[in-house]
């Protein structure tokens, strides 16, 4: 953590831009690059500016760009979420609750209602905090991020998007234009377990678990992803392969927990120690797997 000016009350000055089309936004971003911060919900950006962590000379408010406010689902191809869609819009969407329960569960556990009315899913991802609650949920659904610049668009799997604490593969001239969440495996259920002291807290550890067809090894899908256990959100690829084996579930759960523990590297900070985080990872992973796989 950098030393911060916690007592700053006036935000640093900046030029405010409010483009009304995507083309206009891309032109601005091409011209201004890293000097321009994107403002969607502002619940991270304005806090960082207040704390002196960020001082962007330009702020681009993307909320007037109608084409970015998309939330649509197509059977088979999945869900498309535009970058100005708020967490509250997702939380109150009955289709999301039914089709993407892990993502819905994670979204409703972020901060509090007043922040969720402003904060966006794309912002949660772009901010690239290791503690981003939506990231593990999006990782178990194998979400893709569409990045667009004046040079065109590219689709990046979220599993390759994060490169470090608050660092992503995004280039200076790129903006997030879509988050695409593919159709989940048939019958998939799951949840996001957020270990916290109080509801509005950041996750001490966040665990997203998705399970489909628990009783049929060939068709079985088990996916796990984590927040607050490493410099980036972590998807544990090996777990899905492991659970294709036709072996007793109890044995597989033990092996899965060991694999997960070898893939995470939590730190000690003001919110929890490394040891406590590892303890949570170990026991909550086993608890969630037993629950979702129907093992006593």
């Amino acid at each position: 953590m950098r030393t911060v000016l916690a007592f700053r009350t006036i935000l640093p000055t900046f030029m405010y831009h409010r483009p009304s089309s995507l083309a206009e936004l891309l032109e601005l971003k091409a011209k201004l690059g890293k000097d321009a911060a994107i403002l969607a919900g502002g619940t991270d950006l304005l806090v960082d500016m207040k704390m002196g962590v960020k001082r962007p000379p330009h702020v681009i408010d993307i909320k007037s760009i109608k084409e970015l406010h998309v939330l649509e689902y197509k059977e088979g191809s999945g869900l498309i979420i535009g970058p100005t869609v708020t967490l509250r819009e997702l939380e109150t969407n009955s289709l999301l609750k039914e089709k993407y329960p892990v993502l819905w569960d994670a979204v409703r556990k972020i901060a509090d209602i007043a922040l969720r009315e402003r904060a966006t899913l794309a912002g949660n991802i772009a901010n690239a905090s290791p503690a981003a609650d939506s990231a593990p949920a999006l990782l178990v659904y194998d979400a893709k991020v569409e990045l667009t610049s004046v040079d065109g668009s590219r689709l990046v799997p979220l599993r390759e998007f994060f490169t470090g604490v608050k660092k992503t593969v995004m280039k200076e001239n790129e903006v997030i234009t879509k988050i695409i969440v593919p159709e989940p495996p048939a019958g998939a259920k799951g949840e996001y377990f957020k270990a916290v002291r109080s509801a509005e807290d950041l996750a001490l550890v966040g665990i997203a678990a998705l399970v489909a067809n628990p009783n049929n090894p060939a068709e079985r899908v088990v996916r796990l992803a984590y927040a607050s256990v490493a410099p980036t959100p972590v998807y544990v690829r090996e777990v899905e392969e492991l659970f294709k084996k036709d072996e007793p579930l109890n044995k597989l759960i033990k092996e899965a927990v060991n694999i997960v523990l070898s893939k995470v590297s939590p730190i000690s900070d003001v919110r929890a120690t490394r040891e406590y985080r590892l303890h949570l990872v170990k026991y909550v992973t086993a608890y969630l797997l037993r629950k979702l796989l129907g093992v006593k």
Partner: protein
Amino acid sequence: MAETITIRLKVNGVEKEVTVKPNERLLDVLREKFYINSVKAGCLRGECGICTVIMNGKLVKSCLVLAPEADGAEILTVEGLSRPGKPSVVQRAFIEKFGFQCGFCTPAFIMAAYWIVENMPDASEKEIKEILNSVICRCTGYKQIIEAIKYAIELKKQA
């Protein structure tokens, strides 16, 4: 940068055009241009909720909304809920159930309570508590606040 922007706001039913700097917050505009002093500056980072207002029907923290972002918005604060001598249902419930101690957080809690009463008439205690996560009471007098909100829901149903 001396850039200024003219925005139009409707606050408690009164529409006004004001000139703002981009780095001013909705909170600053409400206090300094509309003289709404119930909306207070606390942490200024979206944690304490003391600056909570209803913006276009939504519960938001006015410290995390830039003034230019509020252009065209309709804002409701505790001043807009009642006329002098005629408290609203929510305000009456807070008075009768002692839903405040020092009073510092009360305008914010009243706005959260108003939002609940208007939008979640069947809210359970658990749901009320979830919404109240967004505002911190420094005196920790939550019990009476929750009682007041439950009572306000009853009053509203009777009316």
